[in-house]
């Protein structure tokens, strides 16, 4: 009821036409008109780059195995020459931090670059729209086809499109699973209908997600599902490049004949042809200003530049520019100078630090793993020949793909002697690829060398072939009699 009273008050101040609406609404389908131009070309370059990588990499071989394979059962993650294990999770954190910072940096510089050019949602939508256009025709033809009654033409085109979409989706699903199951076994298995239950499930699941998101959900994903679309505004500032309609130049908009000239009848440069709206994949009008739906794809820039060209006007009625650039009528150099602002510099500095840290730490990552577990029940004991003895359980894991031998040194106290159980130093020799061993060592110290108590010692295990050393801390306990 209070709504109604407010409504009445409102009506009295601004008497306007009212439409009665439901709280729910079937979203209107966006028929994006195809566009060509500079930014569209860049999008297609990114489509090719990302998709050649995605579809191609699972087929590459490296040392007789798949170059990039995430073996979940074996808990080993092959990335070309590198092999990661679950305990290397830190590198995944590194990668995610680097990705997040790159996103922040690019967003601070030029808005939703990721959304417009490389996001899988954009890339697959672009591919699906390309197939749609090839089969159903251009924007007008598609609208007509959807409006028309079902006839042979419509059935043929619609089934063709479904066939193409589904095939592409399934192939995407197969490729995705190919990162987790060896591709060259997976594909023959699928051909012979012998793929495992989970593999089949994920092929169909990922395939369906591609088909549904790129074929039907499209801009709905960006508008309602994507969290990044909502928090990106935190990275925007007045110097962020965004797709902007030059209102000063364009308004008042109005159609006119080509002969009439750019500023005839007091009009601005916008000829109100609406093509910028028709090409928009999210169905918005950029002339209303920056909106959260805008994914920064630049399709409207390409379209408007084309129109301006045909009209014989200067390009750039819609362009990448900054808020400050518009307000202060800066030229390109003045805007570019604002690239060196603290936000960008700080993002870049942190990003560079993280990337260098990641590369260096992966470069120096040893090929094996050592954990030293000190026996706790047996604190310390005397051997029959009067030495103090502590026992350690060394967990040694060869993480490389070749057989390796190791050497052990213990430092921290003078005259520490290593005694392998069973007197068998072979326990740290000839570890097969990925072999794990529990090596029990007794460390001995002559009595009376040092005070009673706990002493810090260091186990230094050296990979003889790779010449890498891992140092693990532990303690040696000398009992007080």
């Amino acid at each position, binding site marked *: 009821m209070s709504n109604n009273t407010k409504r009445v008050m409102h009506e009295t101040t601004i008497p306007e036409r009212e*439409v009665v*609406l439901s*709280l729910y*609404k079937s979203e209107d389908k966006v028929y994006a008109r195809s566009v060509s131009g500079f930014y569209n070309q860049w999008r297609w370059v990114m489509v090719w780059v990302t998709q050649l990588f995605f579809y191609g990499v699972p087929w590459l071989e490296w040392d007789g195995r798949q170059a990039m394979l995430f073996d979940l059962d074996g808990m080993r993650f092959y990335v070309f020459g590198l092999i990661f294990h679950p305990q290397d999770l830190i590198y995944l954190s590194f990668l995610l931090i680097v990705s997040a910072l790159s996103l922040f940096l690019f967003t601070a510089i030029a808005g939703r670059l990721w959304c417009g050019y490389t996001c899988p949602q954009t890339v697959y939508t672009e591919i699906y729209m390309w197939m749609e256009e090839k089969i159903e025709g251009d924007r007008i033809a598609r609208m007509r086809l959807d409006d028309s009654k079902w006839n042979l033409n419509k059935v043929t085109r619609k089934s063709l499109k479904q066939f193409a979409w589904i095939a592409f989706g399934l192939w995407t699903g197969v490729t995705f699973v190919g990162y987790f199951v060896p591709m060259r076994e997976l594909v023959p298995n699928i051909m012979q209908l012998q793929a495992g239950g989970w593999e089949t499930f994920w092929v169909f699941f990922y395939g369906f997600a591609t088909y549904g998101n790129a074929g039907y959900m499209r801009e*709905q994903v960006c508008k309602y599902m994507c969290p990044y679309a909502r928090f990106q505004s935190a990275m925007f500032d007045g110097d962020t490049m965004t797709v902007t309609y030059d209102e000063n130049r364009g308004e008042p908009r109005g159609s006119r004949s080509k002969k009439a000239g750019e500023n005839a009848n007091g009009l601005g440069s916008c000829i109100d042809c609406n093509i910028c709206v028709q090409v928009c994949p999210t169905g918005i009008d950029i002339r209303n200003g920056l909106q959260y739906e805008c994914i920064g794809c630049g399709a409207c820039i390409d379209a408007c530049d084309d129109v301006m060209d045909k009209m014989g006007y200067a390009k750039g009625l819609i362009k990448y520019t900054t808020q400050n650039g518009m307000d202060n009528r800066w030229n390109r150099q003045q805007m570019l100078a604002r690239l060196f602002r603290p936000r960008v510099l700080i993002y870049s500095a942190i990003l560079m630090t993280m990337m260098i840290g990641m590369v260096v730490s992966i470069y120096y990552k040893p090929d094996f793993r050592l954990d030293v577990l000190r*026996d706790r*029940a047996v604190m310390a004991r005397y051997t029959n020949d009067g030495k103090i003895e502590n*026992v350690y359980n060394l967990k040694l894991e060869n993480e490389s793909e070749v057989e390796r031998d190791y050497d052990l040194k213990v430092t921290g106290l003078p005259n520490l002697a290593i005694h392998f*159980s069973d007197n068998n130093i072979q326990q740290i020799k000839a570890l097969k690829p990925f072999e794990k061993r529990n090596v029990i060592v007794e460390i001995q110290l002559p009595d009376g060398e040092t005070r009673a108590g706990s002493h810090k010692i260091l186990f230094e295990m050296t990979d003889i072939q790779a010449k890498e050393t891992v140092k693990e801390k532990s303690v040696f306990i000398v009992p007080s009699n």
Partner: protein
Amino acid sequence: MNDFVSGFWPIWISTITLGGIAFCVGLLIFASRVKVTLDSDNTNGHEWDGIKEMNNPLPMWWVGLFIITVIFGLAYLFLFPGLGEYQGKFGWTAVKQYEAEKAKNNEKIAPLYAKYAAMQVEDVAKIPEARDIGKRIFLNNCAACHGSDAKGSRGFPNLTDNDWLYGGSPERIKETITEGRIGMMPPMAAAVGNEEDVKNVANYVLSLSGSIHDSGRANAGKDKFVVCAACHGAEGKGNQMIGAPNLTDNTWLHGQGEAAIIKRIHEGKTNQMPAWEEKFSPEQIHLLTAYVWGLSNK
């Protein structure tokens, strides 16, 4: 649900769960009947501090997902335990799942153990794979007391030498692991005599193994050793039937030297090895026996 003894709580939980779902469905239906009026600038007239609310209707596919979620939720609550004391159509419990997984695993490893169970302990100990299995069982269960290298420490016997309290034959080792052992030496000082007698006996005990001792005291203590001989034997070689240690070798489970021996004569000692038959299957104990036997029989 064992912690919720009162009959009130199952009803409370069911009411909140089902009530929550019913409320959501009601809200969805209610909202579908509400109509909003819209101004030409796409605002709906709601205004707070100069900020106008734009019309932004919920997409229909979202409503669809909402309905699917409600159906899923109800189906889940029907099939699985979620409503108070209702067990669910599938009768799933975490314990049942654990037991099913355990049974599956046991079935998988049974052939492995069965192969070794049919063999003699001595033969099993020669097979590296079998020793590895035994070693893993040992490291996870026995090493806490006997040490990772099985050499023990004060109070925990060394298993790698040939000195056995209860015998080192495969049968005796298996018995020790299965049933455990309780070794008990009573305080003997009163039976031995006065403080001097105790010291003399201690020196006699040291002399048995050729350790450093006072030979005068050892001679004096020899007669008093009679009370010890009941368990440790006239020659001090111990008795594996009752776990009385051999005093003639250089293995000292509870400490070396005169002071440690005097302390034992005064205080006695009760030492226990737990029984493992509850935790391990006979096949596992068979493998563990082979590993332990193999430590001193190479």
